């Protein structure tokens, strides 16, 4: 039975680049996949595109492509990525130019479009998960992108593309597309599609399945995290999977690393909603079959819902923040005094906040008073952050922390402030039939 090898070259937009080069050079891959698009990224990219029609794709696209294209070409590795963000066509043009500069001739590069549904959606009364409708956002709406499935990626590969660049696609779809293309899986073979989603789900966060985000010294030790190897999935035609990595790279692939990633960002494991299938991971089994080799099997799937999730970016509010540190005996008490002063100052200044957080980093900032220990920390960092309707009020919050230098408790140091506009993301659903995908090709 035929097996193909897929590598994950990035788990998020800012991820390390060397592990992807290692995979392209030594991974004996058929495909190298880069998942680089977080929930909010596309809304920010859309704003960049409005200012410059050629912008709006991943800021590291050029660096990544320059780093991996030569080895991918030499070793026959095809690339699939969502680095197109808000502008897959411009990303494909840019990649074409890079390939030409590198002297790579005859390369076919595809841009998958259709995820941008802002035009169709902005005046609709579809409900958002934040308790209002899309049209009620008015001119605060910044972007609306549907999560695409694997079919258009498979189509681009079928048409001979060596690089496929999408905008918003469901993360596992980036891996499912190559599997559909290579093995000819039917788009209504739910058990196989469910197995393909498991492949994508386990690999899409790259280092998170090879020992990254796992180490807890004395309990879960991981070797050589500074040289963490990114994962390779060996996928058989029947959907059977072995997760492994390049021999000699850092990190480890064990039953435990795979189990942690299996449940990462999963709600009901029997119903993982995806554009192409509802995947069922509830009976998945995991067994170590060699060093850094883990066999994963037992995923299945049920029919898709026929609806696609849409991420809607919108301008939500302004946020202002200030921080300052206190140390030594009485640090906690001086930190508390500082917070009292800032609260009173904001009231005097008439700064209206719909939400205000007063944290003491080192004591209660992560989990609140309830879970914090009673012990006196040697140092605390005061953090005041609030949500406002205006930028001026947001700025005032940081200023009221900074003025603690000369007006607040003794020994405050390292004050810092910021104020920013918040682009938030909400979600809704639209019928799959309302989304029209297309593929555009470029050649070097």
């Amino acid at each position, binding site marked *: 039975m035929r097996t193909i090898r897929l590598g994950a070259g990035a788990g998020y937009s800012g991820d390390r680049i060397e592990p992807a080069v290692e995979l392209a050079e030594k991974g004996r891959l058929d495909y190298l996949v880069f998942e680089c698009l977080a929930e909010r990224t596309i809304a920010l990219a859309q704003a960049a595109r409005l200012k410059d029609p050629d912008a709006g794709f991943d800021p590291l696209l050029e660096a990544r492509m320059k780093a991996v294209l030569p080895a991918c070409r030499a070793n026959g590795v095809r690339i699939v990525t969502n680095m197109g963000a808000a502008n897959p066509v411009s990303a494909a043009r840019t990649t074409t130019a890079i390939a030409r500069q590198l002297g790579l001739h005859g390369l076919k590069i595809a841009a998958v479009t259709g995820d941008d549904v802002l035009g169709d959606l902005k005046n609709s009364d579809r409900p958002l998960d934040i308790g209002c409708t899309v049209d009620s956002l008015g001119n605060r709406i910044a972007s609306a992108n549907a999560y695409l499935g694997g079919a258009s990626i498979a189509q681009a590969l079928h048409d001979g593309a060596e690089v496929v660049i999408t905008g918003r696609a469901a993360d596992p779809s980036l891996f499912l597309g190559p599997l559909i293309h290579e093995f000819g899986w039917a788009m209504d073979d739910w058990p196989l599609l469910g197995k393909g989603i498991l492949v994508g789900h386990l690999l899409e966060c790259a280092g998170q399945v090879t020992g990254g985000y796992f180490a807890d010294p004395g309990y879960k030790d991981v070797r050589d995290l500074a040289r963490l190897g990114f994962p390779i999935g060996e996928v058989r035609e029947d959907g059977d999977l072995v997760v492994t990595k390049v021999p000699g790279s850092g990190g480890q692939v064990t039953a435990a690393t795979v189990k942690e990633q299996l449940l*990462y*960002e999963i*709600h009901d494991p029997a119903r993982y909603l995806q554009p192409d299938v509802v995947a069922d991971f509830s009976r998945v089994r995991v067994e170590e079959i060699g060093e850094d080799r883990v066999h994963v099997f037992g995923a299945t799937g049920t029919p898709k819902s026929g609806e696609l999730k849409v991420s809607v970016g919108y301008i939500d509010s302004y946020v202002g923040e200030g921080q300052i540190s206190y140390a030594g005996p009485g640090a906690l008490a001086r930190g508390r005094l500082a917070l009292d002063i800032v609260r009173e100052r904001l009231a005097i200044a008439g700064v209206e906040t719909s939400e205000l*957080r007063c944290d003491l980093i080192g004591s209660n900032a992560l989990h609140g008073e309830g879970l914090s220990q009673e012990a006196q920390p040697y140092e605390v960092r005061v953090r005041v952050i609030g949500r406002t309707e205006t930028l001026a009020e947001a700025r005032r919050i940081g200023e009221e922390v900074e003025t603690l230098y000369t007006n607040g408790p003794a020994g405050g140091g390292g004050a810092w402030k910021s104020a920013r506009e918040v682009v938030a993301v909400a979600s809704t659903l639209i019928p799959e039939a309302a989304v029209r995908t297309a593929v555009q090709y470029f050649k070097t």
Partner: protein
Amino acid sequence: MKLRDIAHSRTGDKGNTSNVSLIAYDPNDYGVLCDYVTAERVKHLFDGIVNGEVTRYELPEIAALNFVMTEALGGGVTRSLAIDAHGKSLSSALLNMELPDDVSSTSNG
């Protein structure tokens, strides 16, 4: 004994919902996790952080539980004012949960 002695954990986020997995190192301890780490206890642990419901899913094949907690991320990752907007550190709070003395763990003899 703490949960950290018999299990490991990872947190994930989607919108304003957090999920925290709890995976037994030794599959024989899965029963301990099922018996003791109920959705109610987890809800109580995260009192003041989780404002919604806690639902527990069981995965016997991998000796793991998955807790899904709604209204847990300060309005959602993209607008939360929390320093850990993703709630990534919640897994460490869960592992800090004390197990009663009469709970016997296979891995601790």
